[in-house]
């Protein structure tokens, strides 16, 4: 029997993305976000969840997609993200969250090769769910692009792979 892993699927600009369930801490409704001065554009601010503060990032802005106003389906996903050797709780704003699903490891495909280098290091792999592609995030690399930390970028996916 093929080995499967569980992923949380989420929708972003009509496409389906996936995240390893291990990293997911909690899913929340959209709520008011306290803004932070001098924060980068994709960082919306901070929220309080049961006494703990989390920074909130807009996935759309992070992926250079145009921003949209929040709807009923908009969700905040609290994740454990490994940053520079430690795990940080960060909230991501997604258009919607679908479900927790199993994806076969074997069915994961590599990043398509176009013969040149493109900004594709945030992708861990591309899975399938029915006839739809599910783009699996590599959270460590995704955040590494943010931090501009050379060490963080050096060994990013070891923790993720585990």
């Amino acid at each position, binding site marked *: 029997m093929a080995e499967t892993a569980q992923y949380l699927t989420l929708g972003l600009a009509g496409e389906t993305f996936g995240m390893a*369930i291990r990293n997911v801490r909690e899913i929340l409704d959209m709520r008011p976000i306290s803004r932070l001065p001098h924060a980068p554009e994709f960082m919306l601010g901070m929220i309080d969840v049961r006494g703990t503060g989390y920074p909130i990032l807009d996935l759309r802005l992070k992926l250079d997609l145009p921003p949209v106003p929040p709807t009923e389906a908009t969700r905040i996903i609290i994740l454990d993200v490994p940053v520079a050797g430690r795990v940080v709780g960060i909230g991501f704003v997604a258009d919607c*969250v679908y*479900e*927790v699903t199993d994806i076969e490891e074997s069915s994961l495909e590599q990043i398509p090769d176009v013969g040149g280098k493109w900004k594709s290091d945030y992708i861990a792999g591309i899975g399938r769910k029915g006839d739809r592609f599910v783009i699996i995030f590599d959270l460590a690399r995704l955040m590494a692009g943010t931090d501009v930390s050379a060490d963080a970028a050096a060994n990013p996916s070891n923790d993720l792979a585990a």
Partner: protein
Amino acid sequence: MRLTVKAKLAGAFGVVILLSAITGGIAYVKLTHLAETSEGLVQRSARIDKAGELQNQILYQARAQRDVIIASTDSELRKVTDEVKQYRKDAIRTRDEITASATEAGKRLMEKFSASYERLEATEDQIIKFAMLNSNNRGAQLWASEGAPIVKDWNEAINTTLAEARKLPVSAERANALISVLSLRAEGEAVQKNLGFSFYASTLEDLASTIKALGDATDRLRSDAQQSVTALSAAGLSSSAIVGQAERVVKIAGRVSDIVKEGGNIRAAALASTEGVAATNAAIQATTDYVNYVKKAMAEMSEQAAADAASAKLLLISIVIASLLAAVASAFWIALNISRGLARAVGLADAVAIGDLSQKIDVSSNDEIGDLVKSLNAMTANLNATAGVADEIARGNLTIEAKRLSEKDTLGIALEQMVEKLRQIVSEALTAAQNVSAGSQELSASAEQLSQGATEQASSAEEASSSMEEMAANIKQNAENASQTEKIAAQSAKDAEASGTAVGRAVQAMQTIAEKITIVQEIARQTDLLALNAAVEAARAGEHGKGFAVVASEVRKLAERSQASATEIGELSGETVRVAQEAGDMLAKLVPDIKKTSELVQEISSACREQDVGSSQINQAIQQLDKVGQQNASASEQVSSTSEELASQAEQLQSTIAFFRIEQGASMSHSAPLDKAVTQLRAKAAHMAAVDRGPKKQPAVKPQRQLKAAGGGGFAFALGDGEDDRDADFQR
């Protein structure tokens, strides 16, 4: 010869006017003459004035001569001579002015004046010439200026010599010297005295003697001076100073006496007092002569004018009296003639005024009065003729021809028109009588028609009454239906309002449902989220969480289903609310329409009530109609009796008109048709009376109807007891 009043008046006034014109002419001529005379007098007096002026100027010249003689300095002399020149110029101008306007005699007198005046001028010139010499004054001046220092030197020389002589010891020589010096002084004083006398000499003799005395005095002075030389030298005194001074005194005395010797002033005064006075007097006498001459001429002129005025006055008075007499005589004659003629004309006019046309006046004079009398006679004659015509008309003779005398003859025209109008009226009256007979025939026919009409009216009234009954029933039914409809409409309005309220409540309930459903949706969503989180937790738990994951997925499915259902319910309830609101709007629109319907139905029912009242009024009208039918029947009887009366009146008219004769035998032919018409009328009247009485028995039916009306307390139609063929036409 015809002598009219106009001619008489013209003659009388002509004579008076002619005499007045002559008077005026004479007066004008005389007045003009007088004016000329007075003008001449004024001119002459002006000339007298001028002559007076001339005399004054001559006198001024005489005064100027004196002034010239008296004048001592050259400037005074010049001033006076200028004055003299001015006076002369003035005098010449005045003389010329007088000469210009003077008569021949006056001019001759003026020539005489001119001659004497020229003499005066010549004398005056000479006087001025002498005066201009001014000898004594010049001598005095020379003596004062040059003689005074010489005399002073002379006196000093004498005094010096005397003082020297007195110093000498007393001797015969000293005495001789003193005597000779003193005699020299005396001689010098005599020279001075004689010179002073010569300045103030008033006549030529005086002057000559003074000059001679002066000459003697100077000779003596010179000889004494020669003699004194020996005496002085004997005494041992110098004589040269005395002799020198004596020579100087003699010399200056000689010069002064030479000037004074001329005697200019004295000569001038002499000339002025002799020839000057004579010439002046001659000139003044000449002007006085002229003045006297002019005065005399003026006196003559005024005498002549007075004489002329007296004669003119006499002439004028006589002419005025003559014209007055002529005017009075002619006025008296003309007035008497006119008043006599007019009195007779007035008598005739008075007679005509009181209607007496028999008077006549004889024509006596051949003037306007005579014409008036002739015209009055013609007037009475014409009036007599007109009276004859009127008399004929009064007798009923309309065949007479009235002729107008002229287009302005109002009486003649009136008579003419009267005869014409009377003829027309009589013939029209005859025609009218014929018409009356024809009319009475028509009258009888009309009476017949009237009775027929009454019968038809009765049957029509019957038909109308049956129709009215049906109509009344219809109206009542209408009113009832209308009131029911009104009630239903009111109910509908109320119900519609209630429905509106119910719909409103339904809408509210639906909205509440929609709100509640939202809560359910929210719960379902939260549940979904919880289930998702549970799945996440289960997945993180790995193998141990498998069972929990299944439960979570089931819970999530349920949540999704409930959310879908809630959404559906929400949509449905929203739709329901929308539909209910539409229904509510429609109902809200319905309510005013129903109310409007109710109002309209109310109006219909009130209209029905009015119709009910109208129908009762129509009933009354039909009753009235029936009454009129009865009155028509009685009127037919009246018409028949009136026709009889009309016939008798026509007969009377005929007999009355027969008085006038329009043309011979015409009246007979007219009377026959008239009689015939009257007979016909009578027959008709009788017939009509018969026709009228016939139907009178039929109305026996009518009282039954009337009884019914009385029983009902109003008018009721007997609709059941008689149907006619038209009743079938009336259907609902």
